[in-house]
Protein backbone atom coordinates (compact mmCIF):
# COMPACT_ATOMS: atom_id res chain seq x y z
CA UNK A 1 0.00 0.00 0.00
CA UNK A 2 2.80 2.41 0.78
CA UNK A 3 3.98 2.54 -2.82
CA UNK A 4 0.53 3.79 -3.78
CA UNK A 5 1.03 6.80 -1.54
CA UNK A 6 4.24 7.99 -3.09
CA UNK A 7 3.92 11.74 -3.40
CA UNK A 8 3.57 12.38 -7.09
CA UNK A 9 1.45 15.11 -8.46
CA UNK A 10 -1.11 13.52 -10.72
CA UNK A 11 -0.82 15.63 -13.82
CA UNK A 12 -2.84 15.78 -16.97
CA UNK A 13 -1.24 13.99 -19.90
CA UNK A 14 -2.15 13.61 -23.54
CA UNK A 15 -2.57 10.09 -24.88
CA UNK A 16 -3.02 9.00 -28.47
CA UNK A 17 -5.59 6.39 -29.44
CA UNK A 18 -3.64 3.51 -30.96
CA UNK A 19 -6.48 1.03 -31.31
CA UNK A 20 -10.26 0.79 -30.94
CA UNK A 21 -11.95 -2.55 -30.29
CA UNK A 22 -15.74 -2.81 -30.52
CA UNK A 23 -16.53 -5.18 -27.62
CA UNK A 24 -20.34 -5.09 -27.84
CA UNK A 25 -22.73 -2.83 -29.79
CA UNK A 26 -22.54 -0.33 -26.91
CA UNK A 27 -19.01 -0.76 -25.58
CA UNK A 28 -15.63 -0.02 -27.07
CA UNK A 29 -12.13 -0.62 -25.76
CA UNK A 30 -9.83 2.35 -26.26
CA UNK A 31 -6.13 1.50 -26.31
CA UNK A 32 -3.98 4.53 -25.59
CA UNK A 33 -0.37 5.32 -26.13
CA UNK A 34 0.62 7.59 -23.24
CA UNK A 35 4.17 8.95 -23.07
CA UNK A 36 5.75 8.44 -19.63
CA UNK A 37 2.80 6.39 -18.39
CA UNK A 38 3.84 5.50 -14.81
CA UNK A 39 2.03 2.14 -14.75
CA UNK A 40 -1.04 1.25 -12.72
CA UNK A 41 -2.40 -1.17 -10.14
CA UNK A 42 -5.33 -3.37 -11.20
CA UNK A 43 -8.63 -1.70 -10.31
CA UNK A 44 -7.47 1.90 -10.65
CA UNK A 45 -9.05 4.44 -12.98
CA UNK A 46 -8.18 7.52 -14.99
CA UNK A 47 -10.01 10.81 -15.34
CA UNK A 48 -10.72 11.83 -18.93
CA UNK A 49 -11.24 15.49 -19.79
CA UNK A 50 -12.88 16.71 -22.98
CA UNK A 51 -12.63 20.36 -23.99
CA UNK A 52 -15.04 21.91 -26.45
CA UNK A 53 -13.87 24.62 -28.90
CA UNK A 54 -15.52 27.25 -26.68
CA UNK A 55 -13.51 26.09 -23.67
CA UNK A 56 -16.29 24.15 -21.94
CA UNK A 57 -14.87 21.09 -20.20
CA UNK A 58 -16.47 17.83 -19.16
CA UNK A 59 -14.67 15.25 -17.03
CA UNK A 60 -15.45 11.62 -16.20
CA UNK A 61 -13.66 8.70 -14.57
CA UNK A 62 -13.07 5.45 -16.46
CA UNK A 63 -11.69 2.21 -15.10
CA UNK A 64 -8.56 0.72 -16.61
CA UNK A 65 -9.26 -2.62 -18.31
CA UNK A 66 -5.72 -3.71 -19.14
CA UNK A 67 -3.54 -5.59 -16.72
CA UNK A 68 -0.52 -3.77 -15.23
CA UNK A 69 1.82 -6.21 -16.98
CA UNK A 70 0.56 -5.49 -20.49
CA UNK A 71 2.57 -2.36 -21.07
CA UNK A 72 -0.39 -0.55 -22.57
CA UNK A 73 -3.33 1.43 -21.26
CA UNK A 74 -6.77 0.18 -22.28
CA UNK A 75 -10.14 1.55 -21.13
CA UNK A 76 -13.50 0.01 -21.96
CA UNK A 77 -16.26 2.59 -22.25
CA UNK A 78 -19.97 1.84 -22.52
CA UNK A 79 -22.06 4.42 -24.35
CA UNK A 80 -24.74 6.04 -22.22
CA UNK A 81 -27.20 7.47 -24.71
CA UNK A 82 -27.87 10.78 -22.95
CA UNK A 83 -24.41 11.03 -21.45
CA UNK A 84 -22.05 13.93 -22.03
CA UNK A 85 -18.74 12.14 -22.51
CA UNK A 86 -19.33 8.46 -23.28
CA UNK A 87 -21.15 9.03 -26.61
CA UNK A 88 -18.01 10.80 -27.82
CA UNK A 89 -15.59 8.16 -26.52
CA UNK A 90 -17.69 5.23 -27.76
CA UNK A 91 -18.85 6.54 -31.11
CA UNK A 92 -16.93 9.54 -32.38
CA UNK A 93 -13.36 8.92 -31.23
CA UNK A 94 -11.03 7.48 -33.88
CA UNK A 95 -7.60 5.93 -33.98
CA UNK A 96 -4.95 8.62 -33.95
CA UNK A 97 -7.09 11.05 -31.91
CA UNK A 98 -5.66 12.58 -28.75
CA UNK A 99 -7.25 12.36 -25.31
CA UNK A 100 -6.45 14.33 -22.17
CA UNK A 101 -6.22 12.13 -19.08
CA UNK A 102 -4.76 11.94 -15.61
CA UNK A 103 -3.97 8.96 -13.46
CA UNK A 104 -3.72 6.22 -12.51
CA UNK A 105 -5.72 7.02 -9.39
CA UNK A 106 -8.07 5.33 -6.93
CA UNK A 107 -5.85 3.16 -4.73
CA UNK A 108 -8.76 2.18 -2.51
CA UNK A 109 -10.34 0.07 -5.29
CA UNK A 110 -7.26 -1.87 -6.30
CA UNK A 111 -5.74 -5.30 -5.86
CA UNK A 112 -2.30 -6.85 -6.24
CA UNK A 113 -1.52 -10.56 -6.22
CA UNK A 114 0.50 -10.07 -3.03
CA UNK A 115 -2.62 -8.74 -1.27
CA UNK A 116 -3.86 -12.35 -1.42
CA UNK A 117 -7.36 -13.74 -1.45
CA UNK A 118 -9.77 -15.30 -1.67
CA UNK A 119 -11.37 -12.82 -4.04
CA UNK A 120 -15.00 -12.14 -4.80
CA UNK A 121 -15.51 -9.86 -7.80
CA UNK A 122 -19.02 -8.69 -8.65
CA UNK A 123 -19.62 -6.53 -11.72
CA UNK A 124 -22.80 -5.03 -13.15
CA UNK A 125 -22.66 -4.06 -16.84
CA UNK A 126 -19.39 -2.32 -17.61
CA UNK A 127 -18.60 -2.61 -13.88
CA UNK A 128 -16.63 -5.66 -14.93
CA UNK A 129 -13.91 -3.42 -16.42
CA UNK A 130 -11.71 -2.87 -13.32
CA UNK A 131 -12.36 -6.48 -12.29
CA UNK A 132 -11.03 -7.59 -15.67
CA UNK A 133 -7.81 -5.72 -14.96
CA UNK A 134 -7.54 -7.70 -11.70
CA UNK A 135 -8.15 -11.00 -13.53
CA UNK A 136 -5.54 -10.15 -16.17
CA UNK A 137 -3.08 -9.23 -13.40
CA UNK A 138 -3.88 -12.47 -11.59
CA UNK A 139 -3.35 -14.51 -14.77
CA UNK A 140 -0.02 -12.78 -15.48
CA UNK A 141 1.25 -14.06 -12.12
CA UNK A 142 0.21 -17.67 -12.51
CA UNK A 143 -3.23 -17.14 -11.03
CA UNK A 144 -3.73 -19.47 -8.10
CA UNK A 145 -5.64 -17.07 -5.83
CA UNK A 146 -9.13 -18.52 -5.22
CA UNK A 147 -11.31 -16.13 -7.22
CA UNK A 148 -15.05 -16.00 -7.89
CA UNK A 149 -16.40 -13.65 -10.54
CA UNK A 150 -20.08 -12.82 -10.79
CA UNK A 151 -21.11 -10.74 -13.80
CA UNK A 152 -24.55 -9.27 -14.33
CA UNK A 153 -25.69 -7.99 -17.71
CA UNK A 154 -29.01 -7.21 -19.31
CA UNK A 155 -28.59 -9.51 -22.30
CA UNK A 156 -26.09 -12.09 -23.45
CA UNK A 157 -24.84 -9.73 -26.15
CA UNK A 158 -23.94 -7.17 -23.47
CA UNK A 159 -21.48 -9.50 -21.70
CA UNK A 160 -18.00 -8.01 -22.02
CA UNK A 161 -14.83 -10.03 -22.68
CA UNK A 162 -16.80 -13.30 -23.03
CA UNK A 163 -14.20 -15.27 -25.06
CA UNK A 164 -11.29 -14.14 -22.88
CA UNK A 165 -13.16 -15.03 -19.69
CA UNK A 166 -13.97 -18.42 -21.17
CA UNK A 167 -10.25 -19.01 -21.67
CA UNK A 168 -9.30 -17.74 -18.20
CA UNK A 169 -11.82 -19.87 -16.27
CA UNK A 170 -10.44 -22.98 -14.67
CA UNK A 171 -9.18 -24.27 -11.35
CA UNK A 172 -9.12 -21.38 -8.91
CA UNK A 173 -11.25 -19.08 -11.07
CA UNK A 174 -15.00 -19.69 -11.12
CA UNK A 175 -17.03 -17.48 -13.45
CA UNK A 176 -20.76 -16.99 -12.93
CA UNK A 177 -23.06 -14.95 -15.14
CA UNK A 178 -26.57 -13.65 -14.74
CA UNK A 179 -28.84 -12.00 -17.29
CA UNK A 180 -31.60 -9.69 -16.11
CA UNK A 181 -33.57 -9.03 -19.32
CA UNK A 182 -33.53 -12.29 -21.29
CA UNK A 183 -32.97 -16.00 -21.03
CA UNK A 184 -31.54 -17.24 -24.34
CA UNK A 185 -31.95 -20.85 -25.46
CA UNK A 186 -29.34 -23.07 -23.86
CA UNK A 187 -28.42 -20.44 -21.22
CA UNK A 188 -26.95 -22.17 -18.19
CA UNK A 189 -26.28 -19.11 -16.03
CA UNK A 190 -28.58 -17.23 -13.66
CA UNK A 191 -31.49 -15.21 -15.02
CA UNK A 192 -32.32 -12.69 -12.30
CA UNK A 193 -30.87 -9.73 -10.46
CA UNK A 194 -28.04 -10.48 -8.05
CA UNK A 195 -29.42 -11.43 -4.62
CA UNK A 196 -28.16 -12.95 -1.37
CA UNK A 197 -28.94 -16.53 -2.46
CA UNK A 198 -26.91 -16.06 -5.64
CA UNK A 199 -23.97 -14.57 -3.73
CA UNK A 200 -24.12 -17.40 -1.22
CA UNK A 201 -23.94 -19.91 -4.09
CA UNK A 202 -21.01 -18.10 -5.72
CA UNK A 203 -19.06 -17.81 -2.44
CA UNK A 204 -16.58 -17.71 -0.85
CA UNK A 205 -18.42 -17.69 2.50
CA UNK A 206 -17.81 -14.80 4.92
CA UNK A 207 -15.84 -17.15 7.21
CA UNK A 208 -13.08 -17.24 4.57
CA UNK A 209 -12.88 -13.43 4.78
CA UNK A 210 -12.71 -12.78 1.03
CA UNK A 211 -11.65 -9.44 -0.37
CA UNK A 212 -14.73 -8.20 -2.15
CA UNK A 213 -14.84 -5.75 -5.06
CA UNK A 214 -18.20 -4.56 -6.38
CA UNK A 215 -18.49 -2.23 -9.36
CA UNK A 216 -21.48 -1.08 -11.36
CA UNK A 217 -24.35 1.37 -11.48
CA UNK A 218 -25.25 2.88 -8.09
CA UNK A 219 -28.42 0.80 -7.60
CA UNK A 220 -26.59 -2.41 -8.46
CA UNK A 221 -23.77 -1.71 -6.02
CA UNK A 222 -26.24 -0.84 -3.25
CA UNK A 223 -28.17 -4.05 -3.76
CA UNK A 224 -25.07 -6.25 -3.86
CA UNK A 225 -23.45 -4.55 -0.86
CA UNK A 226 -26.64 -4.90 1.20
CA UNK A 227 -26.92 -8.60 0.29
CA UNK A 228 -23.26 -9.21 1.17
CA UNK A 229 -23.66 -7.59 4.58
CA UNK A 230 -26.84 -9.62 5.09
CA UNK A 231 -24.80 -12.77 4.44
CA UNK A 232 -22.31 -11.73 7.11
CA UNK A 233 -19.50 -10.18 5.08
CA UNK A 234 -17.50 -7.51 6.87
CA UNK A 235 -18.58 -4.08 5.53
CA UNK A 236 -14.95 -2.95 5.69
CA UNK A 237 -13.87 -5.78 3.35
CA UNK A 238 -16.30 -4.68 0.64
CA UNK A 239 -14.73 -2.26 -1.82
CA UNK A 240 -17.34 -0.49 -3.91
CA UNK A 241 -17.17 1.62 -7.04
CA UNK A 242 -20.39 3.26 -8.19
CA UNK A 243 -20.78 4.81 -11.61
CA UNK A 244 -23.09 7.54 -10.36
CA UNK A 245 -25.80 9.24 -12.38
CA UNK A 246 -23.80 10.61 -15.32
CA UNK A 247 -22.13 9.25 -18.44
Amino acid sequence: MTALLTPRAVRWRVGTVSELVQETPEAVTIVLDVPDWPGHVAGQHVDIRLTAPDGYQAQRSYSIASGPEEGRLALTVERIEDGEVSPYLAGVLQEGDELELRGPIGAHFSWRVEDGGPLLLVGGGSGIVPLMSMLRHRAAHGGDVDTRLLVSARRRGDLLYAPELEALAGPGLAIHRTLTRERPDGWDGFDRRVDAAMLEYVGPPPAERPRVFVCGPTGFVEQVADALVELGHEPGAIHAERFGPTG
Partner: protein
Amino acid sequence: MSEPRDPVGMLDDRAVWLDGNAMAGLLAEVFGIELTAVVRTCGSCGTAAAVGAHRAYVSAGVVLRCPGCGDVAIRIARLPDRDVLQVRGEWSVELPRD
Protein backbone atom coordinates in the same frame (compact mmCIF):
# COMPACT_ATOMS: atom_id res chain seq x y z
CA MET B 1 -30.74 11.90 -17.33
CA SER B 2 -32.87 13.69 -14.77
CA GLU B 3 -31.73 16.39 -12.42
CA PRO B 4 -31.37 15.26 -8.81
CA ARG B 5 -34.41 16.68 -7.03
CA ASP B 6 -32.21 17.54 -4.09
CA PRO B 7 -28.87 18.82 -5.35
CA VAL B 8 -27.36 18.97 -1.87
CA GLY B 9 -28.05 15.29 -1.46
CA MET B 10 -29.62 15.19 1.98
CA LEU B 11 -33.05 13.83 1.02
CA ASP B 12 -32.34 10.89 -1.25
CA ASP B 13 -28.65 10.22 -0.93
CA ARG B 14 -28.62 7.21 -3.23
CA ALA B 15 -29.19 9.52 -6.16
CA VAL B 16 -26.26 11.82 -5.72
CA TRP B 17 -23.33 10.41 -3.82
CA LEU B 18 -20.32 8.64 -5.20
CA ASP B 19 -17.53 6.70 -3.55
CA GLY B 20 -14.64 8.70 -2.19
CA ASN B 21 -12.52 6.63 -4.56
CA ALA B 22 -14.03 8.55 -7.47
CA MET B 23 -12.53 11.74 -5.98
CA ALA B 24 -8.98 10.36 -6.25
CA GLY B 25 -8.06 12.75 -9.05
CA LEU B 26 -9.36 15.82 -7.28
CA LEU B 27 -7.68 14.84 -3.99
CA ALA B 28 -4.39 14.18 -5.79
CA GLU B 29 -4.64 17.57 -7.44
CA VAL B 30 -5.30 19.37 -4.15
CA PHE B 31 -2.94 17.41 -1.87
CA GLY B 32 -0.37 16.14 -4.34
CA ILE B 33 -0.74 12.52 -3.19
CA GLU B 34 -3.06 9.58 -3.68
CA LEU B 35 -5.30 9.78 -0.62
CA THR B 36 -8.01 7.15 -1.18
CA ALA B 37 -6.23 4.37 0.71
CA VAL B 38 -5.59 6.63 3.71
CA VAL B 39 -7.65 5.69 6.77
CA ARG B 40 -9.72 8.34 8.50
CA THR B 41 -11.31 7.83 11.90
CA CYS B 42 -14.54 9.73 12.38
CA GLY B 43 -14.53 12.14 15.29
CA SER B 44 -18.26 11.68 15.67
CA CYS B 45 -18.96 7.93 15.53
CA GLY B 46 -15.46 6.41 15.59
CA THR B 47 -15.79 4.55 12.30
CA ALA B 48 -12.37 3.96 10.73
CA ALA B 49 -12.69 3.85 6.96
CA ALA B 50 -10.50 4.45 3.95
CA VAL B 51 -11.03 7.83 2.31
CA GLY B 52 -12.04 5.90 -0.80
CA ALA B 53 -14.88 4.29 1.16
CA HIS B 54 -16.30 7.64 2.30
CA ARG B 55 -19.31 9.13 0.53
CA ALA B 56 -18.61 11.95 -1.88
CA TYR B 57 -21.31 14.57 -2.41
CA VAL B 58 -20.58 16.67 -5.43
CA SER B 59 -22.23 20.00 -6.10
CA ALA B 60 -20.52 23.38 -6.23
CA GLY B 61 -17.73 21.82 -4.19
CA VAL B 62 -17.10 18.34 -2.85
CA VAL B 63 -18.00 17.07 0.60
CA LEU B 64 -16.73 13.72 1.83
CA ARG B 65 -18.81 12.20 4.60
CA CYS B 66 -18.24 9.33 7.03
CA PRO B 67 -19.83 6.13 5.66
CA GLY B 68 -20.96 5.27 9.19
CA CYS B 69 -22.76 8.39 10.37
CA GLY B 70 -22.59 10.97 7.60
CA ASP B 71 -20.47 13.42 9.59
CA VAL B 72 -18.38 15.71 7.39
CA ALA B 73 -14.82 14.47 6.81
CA ILE B 74 -13.66 17.17 4.44
CA ARG B 75 -15.09 20.02 2.45
CA ILE B 76 -13.31 21.16 -0.67
CA ALA B 77 -14.34 24.36 -2.41
CA ARG B 78 -12.52 25.26 -5.59
CA LEU B 79 -12.44 29.01 -6.03
CA PRO B 80 -10.95 30.73 -9.07
CA ASP B 81 -7.67 31.55 -7.35
CA ARG B 82 -7.46 29.01 -4.51
CA ASP B 83 -8.82 25.84 -2.93
CA VAL B 84 -10.52 26.10 0.46
CA LEU B 85 -10.36 22.99 2.63
CA GLN B 86 -12.02 22.12 5.92
CA VAL B 87 -10.77 18.84 7.36
CA ARG B 88 -12.31 17.01 10.32
CA GLY B 89 -11.65 13.79 12.24
CA GLU B 90 -8.40 11.89 12.59
CA TRP B 91 -6.50 11.16 9.41
CA SER B 92 -3.70 8.61 9.46
CA VAL B 93 -1.35 9.28 6.58
CA GLU B 94 1.84 7.33 5.97
CA LEU B 95 4.28 8.74 3.44
CA PRO B 96 7.20 6.56 2.40
CA ARG B 97 10.62 8.24 2.24
CA ASP B 98 12.58 6.99 -0.74
